[in-house]
């Protein structure tokens, strides 16, 4: 890929990013670019820090080293008010939906509008109904979050994420634990919102099939590094054994099936002392 072209048109650029949790190094000097108006997927097995990357982009965590620039602003050097202003232009869809449980669906979608604008209630109503219509859940406006299925909760959270018409949406594992129909609905919505609203989308996922169906560009993370990157087609044809194993879901390969252990026969024949 041509790095220089993409960095000119990139909305988010991550440069030389390092981050650790305790002794574990989550990112070890990674750099990547998220292009404007495109759907970029960040993939990798569980525990590779995909969600952590979203939190770093949103300024909820601080990197040890390196920088993250969103729309020309260095996220971690912004003052609090500027960071909050930047966040108003980002939507984030959490894995759990993160709906406020003491409010109805309607009030949840109205929440960012009420907090950040001084619009009259009649206009807020119109906006909320439009957003709910877009995710197909206008009829569910009076339900409480505990009455929603997982897929519905995620759609409501999506309606809330687009309430302030952001420039970018960060999706944290949007497809995890969804039935085929909800999955299809979410795939459709992510694609449609990206194209119709002119958003930039970042999807963090380990769902190879559905994510590569809608992504324009994919980064595959492993062990704190970028193991592979390219369009879905390029990734499918990647020569890296690791990427191949991840994409095809082979049980054994560079990522071993067995957790490191001593020799099997020795282990069975040993005295049975606990280690």
């Amino acid at each position, binding site marked *: 890929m041509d790095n220089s072209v993409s960095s000119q048109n990139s909305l988010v650029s991550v440069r030389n990013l390092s981050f650790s949790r305790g002794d574990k190094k989550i990112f070890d000097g990674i750099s990547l670019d998220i292009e404007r108006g495109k759907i970029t997927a960040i993939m990798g097995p569980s525990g590779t820090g995909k969600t952590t990357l979203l*939190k770093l982009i*949103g300024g*909820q965590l601080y990197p040890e080293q390196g920088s993250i620039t969103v729309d020309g602003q260095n996220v971690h050097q912004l003052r609090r008010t500027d960071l*909050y*202003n930047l*966040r*108003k232009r*980002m*939507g*984030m869809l*959490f*894995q*759990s939906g*993160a*709906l*406020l*449980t003491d409010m109805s669906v309607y009030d949840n979608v109205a*929440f*960012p509008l009420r*907090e*950040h604008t001084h619009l009259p209630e009649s206009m807020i109503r119109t906006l909320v109904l439009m957003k709910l219509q877009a995710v197909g859940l206008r009829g569910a406006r009076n339900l409480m979050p505990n009455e929603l299925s997982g897929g519905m909760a995620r759609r409501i*959270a999506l309606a*809330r994420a687009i309430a302030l018409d952001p420039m970018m949406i960060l999706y944290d594992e949007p497809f995890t634990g969804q039935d085929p129909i909800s999955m299809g609905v979410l795939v459709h919505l992510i694609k449609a919102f990206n194209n119709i609203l002119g958003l930039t989308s970042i999807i963090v996922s380990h769902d190879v099939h559905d994510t590569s169906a809608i992504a324009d560009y994919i980064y595959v993370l492993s062990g704190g590094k970028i193991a592979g990157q390219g369009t879905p087609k390029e990734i499918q044809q990647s020569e890296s054994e690791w990427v191949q194993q991840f994409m095809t879901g082979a049980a054994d390969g560079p990522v071993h099936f067995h957790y490191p252990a001593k020799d099997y026969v020795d282990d069975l024949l040993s005295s049975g002392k606990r280690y």
Partner: protein
Amino acid sequence: MIQFLQYLGKSTRTSFTKLGRGTYFLLQIISGILSVLPRPRLLLNQMYSVGVLSFLIITISGLFVGMVLGLQGYYTLSDFGAEESLGVMVAASLVRELGPVVTALLFAGRAGSALTAEIGLMKATEQLSGMEMMAVDPIKRIISPRFLAGFLSMPLLAALFSAVGIIGGQMVGSGLLGVDEGAYWSQMQNNLDFQDDIINGVIKSIVFGFVASWIALFEGYDAIPTSEGVSRATTRTVVNSAFSILGLDFILTTLMFGDD
């Protein structure tokens, strides 16, 4: 020995770090209070769930404590032929000590534990994090209104506790045991001092309200976001609040009534 010292060092450091985080959190809460004032609705909702919903437990407990005080006081005072002073005894015990202290302990058990569990679960379900990503400061929107509600509710609840307790003492003293009703009330009026007794009691309950709300909210906010973490935090709220309330009560009593 070395291990013991290491353990001691580690736990001291952990406690001090936590104290530091708690203090920083308190400063954030206080600076967030200004943004609650233009939105009285947020405060009223919390006053309802923290204060009004504690109404029943406070009233019933106050009544029983007052009745027991009436009984016990009568038995002791009648030995000296001083049962006419029952009113003063009941009222002074309630207004100076039992009102603020028992109310604060009940508050920590009823409202404090609920606050910790609520905030802890909001953290565990990413609601606080989600709010931050929507550019809404959870301290200003969620924590400060709850703090202010707890802080304002406590003196009101303590006053209610004492008032109901005094009526309970009167019910037992005059109703059952035959203490003269006029003496019960007039002795109370003559001997209770507004400044020394009532104001000092109110100051106590304000301090307890401040501390109990702070502990409850901090434990919730600082909880490990799992079900076990939230359950431990809830327990810590009740235990730490009880210790702080009783410890502070001793200190405050020494300061207030020390030179009598």
